[in-house]
């Protein structure tokens, strides 16, 4: 059974996935960040593979990617950092990124090495469903990785069902029509999440975009299995010289 599936069998409510850009704030802080997240209550860890042109991201995550790239982060370096991660990290690890760096690395090679270092799932927001079904999905599956599609308030019910049927692990419900870290209040998020819940999807649902504190986390968890925090955590890490303490304080604020 996949680590992600196993997690949701044990825990179906208030599941917390925290995103951090790999190689941020320092090139070698990736593992410290992961440990701190695991130690302070994160149920899943989503590592961002930095890209020069991250279309779905707002300024904060974009900036963290720019810093990570300037620090020298590459997919190759990330895999080297993750080589021994499984000695200490038990929670599921998801890699999030854009298609181009993955294609240059070699899609099949990427999936093989990701699986080899203990990665559990992938989020590639600009991998479309047609190309997933005709080309890439089989490679992902053959390497035992989960693949998580995004749905938004604009996604039709028919398409939600389709994307749910293609996803394994969980379904990523984007809370509003925005890039990451926008200040849009989660308008109608309740109705949207209730609709998703009523559809009795195959996968658990985690809500992302706009989740930044206890209040927004609680709102998301009221109608979904949990939530994903990214921008707010990246902001908290900015300029810190103590990843462990910063992460502890941040997650206490969300989970208390």
């Amino acid at each position, binding site marked *: 059974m996949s680590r992600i599936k196993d997690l949701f069998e044990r825990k179906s409510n208030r599941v917390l996935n925290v995103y951090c850009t790999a190689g941020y704030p320092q090139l070698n802080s990736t593992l410290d960040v992961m440990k701190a997240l695991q130690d302070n209550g994160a149920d899943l860890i989503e590592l961002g593979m930095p890209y020069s042109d991250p*279309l779905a991201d707002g300024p904060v995550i974009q900036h963290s990617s720019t810093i990570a790239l300037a620090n020298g982060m590459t997919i190759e370096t990330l895999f080297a950092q993750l080589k021994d991660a499984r000695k200490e990290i038990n929670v599921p690890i998801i890699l999030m990124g854009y298609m181009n760096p993955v*294609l240059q690395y070699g899609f099949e090679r990427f999936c093989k090495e990701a699986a080899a270092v203990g990665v559990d799932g992938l989020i590639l927001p600009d991998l*479309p469903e047609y*190309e997933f079904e005709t080309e890439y999905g089989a490679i992902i599956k053959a390497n035992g990785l989960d693949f998580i599609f995004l749905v938004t308030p604009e996604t039709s019910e028919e398409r939600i069902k389709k994307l749910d049927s293609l996803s394994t692990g969980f379904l990523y419900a984007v809370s509003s029509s925005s890039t990451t870290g926008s200040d849009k209040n989660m308008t109608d998020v309740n109705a949207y999440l209730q609709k998703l819940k009523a559809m009795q999807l195959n996968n658990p649902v985690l809500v992302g975009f706009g989740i930044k504190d206890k209040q927004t986390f609680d709102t998301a968890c009221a109608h979904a299995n949990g939530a994903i925090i990214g921008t707010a955590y990246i902001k908290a890490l900015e300029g810190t010289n103590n990843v462990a303490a910063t992460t502890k304080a941040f997650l206490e604020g969300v989970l208390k």
Partner: protein
Amino acid sequence: MMETTYQKPSAQGYYGKFGGAYIPEMLHRNVEELQSRYLDIMSDAAFQKEFRALLKDYVGRPTPLFYAKRLSKQFNTNIWLKREDLCHTGAHKINNTVGQILLAERLGKKRIIAETGAGQHGVATATVCALKGVECIVYMGEKDIERQAPNVARMKMLGAKVVPATSGSKTLKDATNEAIRDWINNPNDTHYIIGSVVGPHPYPDMVAKFQSVISEEMRWQLKEHTGTDLPTHVMACVGGGSNAAGAFYHFLDELSVQLIAVEAAGHGVNSGMSAATTQLGKPGILHGSKSLLMQTADGQVVEPHSISAGLDYPGIGPMHANLFDSGRGIFLSATDEEALAAAFEVSKLEGIIPALETAHAFAVLHNHPFKTDDQVIICLSGRGDKDLATYMNHL
């Protein structure tokens, strides 16, 4: 599966290996709406009537096909100039923005966004938005705003809001990112007018179709002049590739016609300061489509260089990537210096000051031999007024 040709992409928007719609889910509804409706809207008789009327009475089409006598003599061949520089706003860009504003109207969109590099597409978009009384926001790299002050002023005078793109390299690539992010954040009322044959399907095909009026006119005009509608060569400069797509379009599947695309070599193809995408790029994904892309070994997008802001783009439209890959098109390049020299040469020989972008196409006349009986059409995509500051430094 639909049959593809050089001209017509597959149902999924592929020209050979290139194209597609690599977009995040947040853009899916808008892109799908365009995919499912653009062909119907564009083939509608009322749409065509309005589009054609505006091209004629507002843009000033047909633009002349002019026999360049002194230039022909200089290169010992027959050179025809397709005068897109005489279009309203001074370049071919407006053919596309007129089409897309009419399309946006039929999609019920009230707000227009666009990206711009040199500012020509921004001006062309601001122009049609003023014409239709629609809100217009143009994203432009912070560096380009400094470099292209006259076009920024034109856009503002036309009522557009110019928003600086401050991320990344602060040029066209980043302006495009910001425009796409705006579209993600405004999914209901906004249409994104992309200025080139790039972006997710259907943009490359849609923009090529709006620009195809260029080659449609070339054919009947050449026939009027010479009795035959097929030249031996069609030449155009290529950044993203919109004027080349328009100039090649009705010749793409006429295999006797040689299609010559000229990229910007900057300081030289191998100088590290170049924008010659087909020479330096590898297959990759940027701005929603798979094409050739200038990038590092790790797949990070590289910032190109060209003296002309309109060719300063690290990618190329998927149609052109396929023309290069299949060998259907001949891809040449010209350096900054060669383009500058050509701009002065054309000005003095024909009394036409071309845009720096266009000058690249003329530059290769020096190193690509033509026969005396060849009929060569060069797409004179824009006029050089916007480049006077650069030209003045070389007088």
